[in-house]
């Protein structure tokens, strides 16, 4: 079954498709230039610890997202 969750709630190693980004223009643009945008598959490399960032694999590279943003990027995962 497909579920929509923020990347913060993904399990480490899980892959999901970005479906929505709730962020202001500035953050939205910066995420997009790094390749994080609707329709793209991302894999979670490491989870947040004590409100730290999560690390995602997008295309060939890893990107770290702050704790707050990790709740604003919504992905669809197979659960």
């Amino acid at each position, binding site marked *: 079954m497909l579920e929509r969750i923020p990347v913060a709630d993904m399990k480490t190693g899980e892959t999901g498709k970005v479906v929505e980004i709730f962020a202001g223009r500035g953050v939205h643009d910066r995420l997009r230039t790094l390749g994080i945008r609707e329709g793209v598959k991302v894999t979670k490399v490491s989870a947040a610890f004590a409100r730290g960032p999560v690390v995602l694999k997008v295309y060939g590279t*890893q990107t770290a997202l702050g704790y707050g943003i990790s709740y604003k990027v919504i992905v669809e995962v197979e659960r």
Partner: protein
Amino acid sequence: MKNILIMGNPNVGKSAIFSRLTGIHVIASNYPGTTVEFTQGTMQLKDEKAVLIDVPGTYGLEVTSKAEEIAVKMLENGDAVIDVVDATNLERNLHLTLHLLEKNIPVIIALNIWDDAKHKGITIDVKKMEELLGVPVVPTVAVTGEGIKELVCRIPEASSPEIAERTEEQRWTEAARIIDKVQSLQHRHHTAMEIIGDASVKPLTGIPMAFLVMFVVFKLIRFVGEQLIGNVFEPIFERLWKPLMMQLSSVLHPGSFLHSIVIGKLIEGEIDFVQSFGVLTTGLFVPIAMVLPYVFSFYLVLCFLEDFGYLPRLAVLLDNLMHRMGLHGWAIIPALLGLGCNVPGVMATRILESRRERFIAATIISIGVPCAALQAMIWGLVGERGGRYVGIIYLSLFIVWIVLGRVLDMILKGQSPELIMEVPPYRLPSLQTISKKLLMRMVAFLKEALPIVLLGVLVVNILYFLKVFDVIANLTSPVITNVFGLPKEAVAAIAVGFFRKDVAVGMLGTLNLTAKQLVIAATVLAMFFPCIATFVVLFKELGVTDTLKSILVMLISSLVVGGLLNAIL
């Protein structure tokens, strides 16, 4: 003369290509944002000379940071672009390439990190890529020089295909379409580097690893520095330079004006390189034998960490802590650079997005982050009295750094932006690039420090001779003696801190201070004012008002901390 721009995403090797093409060495590291200011050089292109410009890395041509703003502006004055593309991350890199191709400027593509792509099982059909994009594509490995010759030969072929402006979405679709046709991936297992890479950002494994790395780094810097001082530099000065200076001393007659400037005071009839304080004795000994070895060992270790790609991982792990200071994890990188020299540290605050962040980061670096020169002198002079005194200085500065960040975050309006940062893969640094970078930083240190130290010692001696310091000492003695508990003569050292902090600590060495007084004086010296070089950079980066604010913060906090230490210790 033609202007050729080197552009591309951050951390794809633009600076390495620039070095190869111009023979000018610029600092390149394995993290995005090493180049915050553009660098230019010239290269020979067939019969004409061309100006080559190393543009800061950008993910797109929309302006979201200062580096991108610079890049977009420079595009207007360029005649051609060498677009450096990371072959291991083609799809995202192509997004910028496609945008560049719309800009009506001739483009040639350097398909860099070609060796890594092969190792990762990525095959790219270069001919097909040229066909689809309509511009020349040359595979390169900038760190080894592979493909650079072909790149140079083909620069004149750079072309500008007629492409109508696309929307951002169309660019991504087009990039995906091209990838589909030119790139094939082979399945392969994770390499050891990738496994270590992942382990060092995961909190459970990453935090112990960070402690281990910091411990090893600290020990290594101390070890290399001490070995160099004890086995190389001190013997050279003691055995070769001292006899020469003793002869000069007898020629000049101890006690004469010239003698006190050139040789300084004789301690029990002998030259003491730490205490004599002459231009040719202490003036040379401090920068060369006490500071340079530590500058060398610090940058040796830092260069390795930079090129290996460890720093961004540290930024991820420390993001939470840095948020409490109104910053995000990225801000740890300027602070680390500041431990070498505050000048590049303050300059690197440009990688931060907002003015507020840059102000906080630059201010707490100039106050709480001691540079390698200052640290070396603290180790040399305070270390003699016992390691715990050095420990107290470091601990005080660390607490100041955090508390001040916290306070500034609460006072200043606005919020700190969230971390959005690319984490590059680990790469084994090449010996050649590390030694080049190390050499550059050493030369920069000597060029910058040696003249100012010599001049500083000269001026200090003349001022002593003219008894100027006595006047200042009497004026400031209430603060110096009552608040800090220091003898009023220490004001001379603190005043010299405006020039160079290493010389200033050296002057403290001549005052017969107690260990407690040394700790207070060294801490106040580290905090109260940036050295002249850092001051100039602060001024450039922050502007007049913010620099003044920053200095006000410095003066107040050094008064408070110096007073507190005097009361507690």
